[in-house]
């Protein structure tokens, strides 16, 4: 029976997939493919590797679907899988991410013109979307530059809008610790992106 998945909870979809309904899995993938990919991408900082890890994450879901007992939320289970893969990857490739952050043009090392400098010559009616396009990589780089324990909390919260208590389950620390890490992450981001604070409104529009 075909399942568009809209009317089912994540856990029900996984059960249906375990019973042979491939459309249920497709619905799950539609829900989580993009946020999980971005979670992994910001964690490993490399698109090709992120694609491989995204694939590995969902393949593990397929392999272990029968083991999922429904005692936790599917989302926490899925992000636990993705997080573990990212940790394994970062252990192997930690130098690579640092290298990419040190690369010219990242906008975080103080080299090169800032966004303000680069947009100073813009006319008053400068295209807001072009500013946003320039600002977004800076934000992404700032996020990737966060300490790992803060970054993962920030990403789960912002990409998946996951409740802090669920993030605590994934990370394995108390909820208050998670909230503290989120605060630290936001403070760091604000500090790193202080010069662009005036443009934050552009992103909201």
């Amino acid at each position, binding site marked *: 029976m075909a399942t568009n998945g809209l009317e089912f909870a994540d856990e029900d979809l996984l059960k249906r*997939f*375990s*019973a*042979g*309904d*491939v459309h249920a*899995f*497709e619905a799950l*993938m539609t829900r989580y*493919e*993009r*946020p999980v*990919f*971005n979670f992994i*991408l*910001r964690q490993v900082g490399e*698109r090709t590797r992120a*694609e491989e890890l*995204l*694939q590995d994450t*969902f*393949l593990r879901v*397929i392999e272990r*679907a029968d083991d999922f007992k429904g005692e936790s939320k599917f989302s926490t289970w899925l992000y636990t899988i993705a997080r573990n893969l990212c940790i394994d990857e970062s252990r192997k490739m930690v130098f690579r991410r640092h290298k990419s952050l040190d690369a010219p043009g990242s906008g975080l090392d103080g080299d090169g013109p800032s966004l303000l400098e680069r947009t100073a010559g813009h006319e008053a009616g400068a295209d807001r979307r072009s500013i*946003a396009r320039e*600002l*977004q*990589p800076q*934000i*992404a780089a700032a*996020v990737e530059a966060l300490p790992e324990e803060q970054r993962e909390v*920030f990403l789960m*919260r*912002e*990409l998946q*809008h996951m*409740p*802090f208590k669920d993030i605590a389950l994934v990370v394995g620390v108390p909820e*208050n610790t998670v*909230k503290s890490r*989120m*605060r630290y992450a*936001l*403070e760091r*981001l*604000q500090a790193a*992106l202080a010069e*662009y*604070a005036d443009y*934050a*409104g552009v*992103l*909201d529009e």
Partner: protein
Amino acid sequence: MNCENAKSQILDLLGGDLRAEDAVLVRAHIDGCEACLRDHAQLAAALRLARGMPVEAPPSRVRETVMARARLASAGVQAGRSTASEEAREPALSRFVRWISGFVLGPQVAMAMVLLLMVGVGLFYLPGLRRDRAVQGGAIVNADPGDEAGPSATMEPAEPLDLRLDTRTNRLQPAAGAAEQVIAARPTTAVAIPSDEVAAEDIQSGAPSSATLVPGEVTEPEPIEQVHAIPLEGPSTRSRLAARAATPEEEPSTEEERVAPALDERAAEEDVALQATGRAAEPYAAAAPGRGSGGASADAEPVASRRERSLETSAAPPPARSALSAMGGARASAVGSMAAVPAPAAPSFAPSPPAGGDRLRMAAAQHATARTQAQTGQVRAAIASYETLIRSHPTYERAPEAMLELAELHRRLGDLSSARVWLARAERSPAYAGRARSARTRLDDLERAPAAAAAGPASE
């Protein structure tokens, strides 16, 4: 609410996670507390900025690969379910045979052995064969102590019966010529069983009386002396007759009286005998099936043909009565009808239903189609055909071979992970495990080769 509480809930407030009443409380504290108001403003600004983080789309190939694997897994689940449901529909005998065959034998061999065993047991219990043994050994036993053979054994004709329809009684009666022929055959029987002289004499003396087949005596009850003359030396027969005589309906005073009602009672059960030979013939046929009208005549024909006929008649169920009564004296038809009635044990030995054969043929045809597609370069169509074949015919005996071929097609497409999945499934079959392992090894070599080639120049 104090600052500590408010601070711990500002992030929830900004995320919209607080219940309405909690949100009001936190909001009220923030509005009245400068420090918390500042904290809230800073976090809100940081969040607004952070939400400008780009969200990228994953490439479609990831989804395609994952969904292909999901379809495989789903097909596996459905195949397992259909196998389970087929097993549930499987008769108990088949499941037993499969259980037996699981140890050392293939299912066909196991089925053949079980059939042989059952045929052997069946032959052992055939009354006709036991009668043969009894006759050859010189002992006289009741061939059918439990009456399990039904009327067919008791009235089994050795010679084709010459019957005519008695219009008065509306019953089949033996013709005079046939009776004479039977009587004439009696001395031969006596000679054939020298160890049982008394019985032989009884038969000789009883032969005219066994002319139960003589039309003139048909309507008269059989004289007790004649019944007594029937050889009853067989212990089992004696005990059976004694048991029957013990029925509370009447209390016979003499042995003859005990025997006669018992035989009458038996005759009432022997519906076919009753129809074919008339009431006077019943005691003879019932009390001495091995030596009576059927048995004595049977001695006049080759043992082999009797054995064949025993096989036929013993398989005939009791309802032969209606078939015989409808014949109106056609003797050949009498035997024919008995043989034509389906044997009660037949369903156990019936060949497998054609549906199974059709399924196998369909599976083989699908397999051939998939191969043709693979050979003509329609690789994706072939993959689809193979997957359909494996999913639709999980019990197809060459399914593991199809899995190997399917794995090869995946390998051709460069999808080594799918190839591995199918190889792993094929490896579960003991007959194909070796081939699957070899293919997996080749796959490993294939994967290592590019890696080695890539690593080679760097290390040099």
